[in-house]
């Protein structure tokens, strides 16, 4: 087991977000967290990365309880891609090199530079490497942020809507790359997504969040019209195309 979340509870002052969240993730798992807007998907990711502090419950990464790790140690284990990105007057190369920050003592080592180069290549960003972030399109910036998280060489990737700014081609390419990295390096990825069909392509485990708790969790078999109607309040048909389920609103 690479990640275990036990009895997690989080509330903002006066508003409960979620409680009794229990799940675990194995090496090589891609987990998609699904649910309506405002159900707490992003908040859950932030609690796993200690950006927010849950009121109760525990998160273990391998053997370590996250609150016993320093921020830097945590950043070596967890790569996080936020939903919103801010562009700065930094080049793409420097932005991806920042992913090595948890490992850098005083200055970037040749190894850090090599990993940065490799990650740029992996995401096909080499041609952009000396462009400034504030000159990139939304989709290009999103790829840079994903590259930065991969350069952290984490055990767990937390991706909050990683494909929201990407065109169809880039959506498919990026999630295929992430999936490949997860499988080949035996790490794990937890992703929030609105596009259920894209989630099906990406993930092998799913969690539906509803009313601040886990409504259903499991493999692709839980992607049923009944579950989706219960969670999203919309009627859908789930058809098979090349043996892959496809969700169609009706």
């Amino acid at each position, binding site marked *: 087991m690479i990640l275990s979340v036990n009895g997690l509870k989080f509330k903002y002052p006066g508003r409960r977000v979620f409680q009794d969240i229990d799940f675990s993730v194995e090496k090589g798992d891609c987990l998609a967290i699904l649910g309506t807007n405002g159900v707490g998907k992003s908040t859950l990711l932030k609690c796993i990365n200690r950006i927010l502090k849950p009121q109760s419950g525990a998160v273990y990464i391998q053997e370590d309880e996250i609150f016993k790790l320093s*921020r830097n140690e945590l950043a070596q284990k967890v790569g*996080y891609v*936020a939903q*919103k990105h801010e562009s700065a007057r930094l080049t793409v190369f420097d932005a991806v090199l*920042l992913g090595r920050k948890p490992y850098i003592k005083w200055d970037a080592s040749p190894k850090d*530079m090599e990993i940065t180069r490799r990650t740029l290549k992996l995401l096909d960003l*080499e041609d952009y*490497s*000396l462009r400034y972030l504030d000159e990139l399109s939304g989709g290009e910036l999103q790829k840079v942020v994903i590259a930065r998280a991969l350069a952290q060489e984490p055990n767990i990737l937390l991706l909050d809507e990683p494909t929201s700014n990407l065109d169809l081609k880039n959506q498919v390419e990026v999630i295929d790359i992430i999936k490949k990295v997860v499988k080949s390096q035996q790490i794990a990825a937890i992703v929030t997504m609105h596009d259920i069909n894209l989630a099906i392509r990406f993930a092998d485990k799913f969690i539906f969040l509803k009313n601040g708790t886990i409504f259903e969790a499991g493999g692709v078999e839980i992607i049923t019209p009944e579950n989706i109607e219960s969670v999203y309040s919309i009627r859908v048909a789930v058809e098979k195309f090349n043996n892959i389920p496809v969700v169609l609103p009706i």
Partner: protein
Amino acid sequence: MKQEVSAIANSHLTALYQQYTGRKKFVILLLALMTAALSVIAINAGSMDVSPYQVFMTLLGRGSGIFDVVIWNIRLPRVLAGIIAGSGLSAAGCVMQNNLRNPLASPSTLGISNAAAFGANIAIIVFGAGSIQSSSADAVIINNPYAVTASAFMWAMVGTLIIILLARLRGFSPEAMVLAGVAIGSLFSAATILIQYFAQDVQVAAVVFWTFGDLGRASWKEVAIMAFLVILSIAYFMFKRWDYNALDTGEESARGLGVNVARVRLEGMFISSLITAVSVSFLGIIGFVGLVGPQIIRRIIGSDHRFLIPGSALMGALLLLSSDTLARTVIAPVVLPVGAITSFLGAPLFLYLLARGYQKR
């Protein structure tokens, strides 16, 4: 074959990247050389003619009588004060703009200068540390400068601590810090006005004179204290340069990259305030360098703090030193307040760069 191609691609990217960082290093080197050259000009400039050769010989310890006195006791401390205060204020401004996520942030944003001015007012007006003298070129003298400096510094630190305590309530969010700074700044300004309202004319004159920044107030002792503090602070800022780069990509991303955001902000604000407090207490208010120094250099070399911090420091040194040299020479022997000249020099340069936009690479 494929490996060979990718090796070539890799080395090509490395070469490009090295070229790109090399250009930034070159700009920094150029600024350092310009500061050094300007230092020699600044030592030359003044009511007594000294040639660059004499300056050089004096600095090597081979100067003669009068040059020794003028250069070692008057001009060199002044030039060094300009370099040190300029670089300190500008580096502090650079860190504040990053920490507060606000391009308008500068050492005066948090109201530290107002608090220091209030301290000087208290010392001069309430405790009678200022008086008037009509015979010399400077009509006003401050007869107990140490008391004024100590009081200014003390109140600047009181202001800093109040802001930090207020900001702490809101988890050191940039908004909380800026708003607390503006509020504290106005509070101290209002208190200063009230004190001046009840003061005698000569006291007000003394305190207004104090407020004009003046590098000539620094003796070797002040220069040494400022140098110690500014060098340590810039070393600390450089140590945190990756954290500042991470903060530029957003607060949550920075946390995800292992940055303890609240602590980085608290320390950054405290050290920047300390630089401001010391510089205002010793030299009076020198505005604009801290705001415009980092902004000018950001437009030339970008926001990578590995280069931006040393670049800002050198830009600040260059701005303040050139302003002071101009202030001393433009209508010599009258020495104009350097704070005003800084804005006169800095504002057009800044506006030009603003209109031109960012340099492409």
